[in-house]
């Protein structure tokens, strides 16, 4: 076969390959959307991080502004220290709130930043003071049950002692009967 024809076909082949790779990178992959520029690093202490993982998104107003870098355990205070990298384009006030949220019902966990009102901004190596832990389902259910139980107690503050009194009356009555039986 002619050498120029072969060159042409190989050129077409390589071009197709490069186009496919570009398509994968741009249309399928996250090369365009989740591209963080230079970042600065801040840390935050949580009592419970739930199932937060390194590389989880850090969002503010729903927009990804950074990524979780590492999660370590502080053996002295028994807290989790989460290091996050935030894009340098975004400056956050010093009193920014860091919360751990869950995307959807069963989704992954991410850190939500809610900006405060301070004029100073967070700098590299700073620590976010105000944090809110991940919600643990068991904890929430037990809290709910406790509060429900105390509510019912408060609502039926009067009737409950009365009914118990009646109950005890019956019991004592029964007992006396029983006790009295042999006597009859």
């Amino acid at each position, binding site marked *: *076969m002619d050498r120029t024809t*072969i060159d042409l076909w190989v050129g077409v082949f390589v071009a197709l390959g490069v186009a*496919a790779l570009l398509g994968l990178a741009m249309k*399928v*992959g996250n090369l365009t959307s989740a591209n963080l520029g230079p970042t600065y690093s801040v840390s935050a202490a949580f009592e419970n991080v739930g199932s937060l993982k390194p590389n989880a998104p850090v969002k503010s107003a729903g927009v990804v502004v950074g990524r979780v870098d590492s999660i370590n355990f502080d053996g002295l205070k028994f807290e989790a220290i989460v290091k996050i990298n935030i894009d340098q384009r975004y400056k956050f006030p010093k009193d920014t709130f860091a919360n751990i949220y869950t995307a959807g019902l069963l989704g992954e966990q991410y850190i939500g930043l809610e900006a405060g009102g301070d004029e100073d901004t967070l700098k590299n190596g700073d620590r976010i003071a105000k944090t809110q832990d991940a919600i643990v389902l068991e904890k929430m259910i037990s809290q709910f049950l406790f509060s429900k139980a105390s509510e019912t107690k408060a609502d039926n503050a009067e009737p409950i002692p009365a009914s118990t009194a009646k109950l005890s009356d019956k019991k004592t009555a029964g007992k006396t009967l029983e006790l009295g039986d042999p006597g009859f």
Partner: protein
Amino acid sequence: MIKLLVIAIGRVLRGLGTRMIERVWRLGAGARLFFLTIFYSGESFRRFHLVMREIYFTGVMSLLIIIVSAFFVGMVLALQGYNTLQKYGSSEAIGVLVALSLVRELGPVVTALLFAGRAGTAITAEIGLMKTTEQLSAMEMMAVSPIARVVAPRFWAGVISMPILASLFSMVGILGGYLVAVPLIGVDQGAFWSQMQANVDFRLDIVDGLIKSLVFGVACTMIALFEGFDAPPTAEGVSRATTRTVVISSLTVLGLDFVLTSFMLAV
């Protein structure tokens, strides 16, 4: 009686030993051919049209089978994935399913298997026949190294073609999955692409898939070349070598895939 038994066991063990030594010898010979190929690569790059010719025969001629099978694989993935995902009410995740399974696994692996069948056998048969008809010896007589002239261009053609074919396979497969999922089944097309983009990572998924296909390219081409180079110079020898190329390449690809995947997921 006992003597006979000892002799029989000895014969079995000797057969096992012979086979083992032969296997190790072939492995060594293959490794030697690999290093010689790398060593002579410079000469084949200086005459790059040789590599171009081989890219044409191994890569461009494999385009049809790769594209058609990728299209069907993608469509089947979308159908099967939808069938299961809709039970959990998450049929929008079908894009993620199709993209991740193609980019991470099916793209590199199925391409390598098809490549071994389409191009690997051709390489083995060609080189085996060159050896049978003493063309390789004739080259040596003319002081042309057959490794530089015949083996190295085919090796580099295979190594260059494989990642290109694998990324084409993934892209065409995803398009096939799109065609089934969006116009045919009626999954929302925005959810299809956006969920895919949110869950496919360029470095961890796409680049790892490319690394896999590169490794498979080296393995498949090298096995095909070695089998051809090592084939007994008879019609039967060449036919056996061709069969062995397909069997060994496929098993090697699947085994290597497990090893590479476990390394990639462990990081």
